[in-house]
């Protein structure tokens, strides 16, 4: 009991995380900082990475573990904005890979990381269900009020990219929902609940046959840079740097481009 009380009392930085807990199920994608810090042996590396990196970074993590016997790589995948908040509130991360420069800036502004490097870029695509029930062919079809569209909320990177692309095309699209992250947006397409959504090329690829991706020219105006940085407070700076190097290496780039990312 003492431990718990003292943790709450000292837990002002956790206040923000608690807000999410209070409102329900935000916990599924929350980090458990206490758990990862308790195993803070020199052989554990904790990587906070954007949700869109889930598949590729998991693979790179295995590669890294194989090359560094005795090291285990732990991931926390979530929306970049959430991760940036967690890091500035003191979550014990060693490496941060974000889906937008803005979310990385939150962390560098707090002097928790320096000199992030852009390692990949991601472009938006129109995702439609495999049978494309609303016959969406181009970005302008999304402005049709009969077409049900899901967009990411403007607060998350895929949402601000969508706004940029739509502005570039001079279109006004009223979606039926602003989803909390790119995976949730894609799920609405997979389930056929919406006729179209704007998501990243990489997410369309991971969805497989259920979703078809349509490239559109305005996507070039809204390319997302993904920055990565080793965090300055890491107890394992060497390992953190080696992981960043792996992501930036030819081998890392290979894994990432195969998944639909573009080289910077």
């Amino acid at each position, binding site marked *: 009991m003492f431990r*718990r*009380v003292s943790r*709450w*009392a000292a*837990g*002002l930085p*956790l*206040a*923000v995380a*608690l*807000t*999410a807990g*209070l*409102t*329900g*199920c*935000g916990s*599924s994608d929350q980090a458990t900082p206490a758990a990862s810090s308790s195993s803070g042996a020199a052989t554990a590396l904790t990587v906070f990475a954007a949700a869109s990196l889930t598949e590729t970074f998991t693979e790179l993590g295995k590669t890294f573990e194989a090359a560094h016997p005795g090291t285990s790589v732990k991931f926390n995948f979530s*929306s970049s*904005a*959430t991760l940036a*908040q967690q890091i500035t509130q003191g979550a014990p991360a060693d490496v941060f890979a974000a889906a937008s420069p803005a979310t990385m800036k939150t962390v560098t502004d707090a002097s928790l990381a320096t000199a992030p490097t852009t390692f990949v870029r991601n472009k938006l695509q129109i995702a439609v269900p495999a049978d494309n029930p609303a016959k969406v062919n181009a970005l302008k079809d999304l402005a049709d009020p009969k077409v*049900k569209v*899901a967009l990411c*909320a403007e*607060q*998350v990177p895929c949402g601000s990219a969508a706004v940029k692309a739509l502005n570039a095309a001079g279109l006004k699209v009223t*979606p*039926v*929902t*602003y*989803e*909390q992250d790119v995976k*949730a947006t894609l799920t*609405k397409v997979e*389930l*056929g*609940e919406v006729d179209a959504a704007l998501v990243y090329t990489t997410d369309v690829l991971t969805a497989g046959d259920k979703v078809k991706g349509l490239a559109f020219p305005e996507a070039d105006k809204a390319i997302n840079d993904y920055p990565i940085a080793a965090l300055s407070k890491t107890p394992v700076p060497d390992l953190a740097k080696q992981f960043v190097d792996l992501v930036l290496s030819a081998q890392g780039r290979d894994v990432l481009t195969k998944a639909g990312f573009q080289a910077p």
Partner: protein
Amino acid sequence: MAFLVLPLAGLLIRAPWPTLAQRLAEPQVLEALRLSLVTATVATLVCLLLGVPLAWLLARVTFPGRRLVRALITVPLVLPPVVGGVALLLVLGRRGLIGQWLEATFGISLPFTTAGVVLAEAFVAMPFLVISVEGALHATDLRLEEAAATLGASRWVIFRRVTLPLVAPGIVAGAVLCWARALGEFGATITFAGNFPGRTQTMPLAVYLALETEPEAAIVLSILLLAVSVIILASLRDRWVTSP
């Protein structure tokens, strides 16, 4: 007690008091609050309408499979709300079992509507009502109902004039729990009804999204939601629950 209250204290300490009034006056905030209160109240009414008869059935009528039904009613309690939302989509969504038929026959589509929010909230909150009403029914003295029957009262009259007044505190307590749960509902709502300001964006959804960019705004919204619910619940308790 400290365990329950300290996180709230954390919220209050970190609140940006100087800008609080200004942030609360934003139209989006009031819209989300209004939507939250309206949907939680309607969801509670739906739960009362469906839940009280169900609780009566479980408490008073013996039928085969009653224990199974009782277990099934607690499913929404056990289920992570997001899973509940996905389940609702699979049944009532545009391509769902019933949703497909609803759209083809009546042109009704529930996801992404305010009605969808009510439905998601009612789904998650209903067990709270059913369980507490059933408990209250079990605690009442059956002999009172039997006495009414010997005096010639019909079943409906007995239910209305004897049973309901006896279990009223249980129903009120259940409705309060149900309302509180509906007010805080997040996972099923965002999954089934999506997030659109003014239509499906309730306070918990607004808090979650504000947290992505502006933790301070999230704290303000959380405090508002807490304050409103505590005030409403406190006034209800004094009037209805503690003084029978």
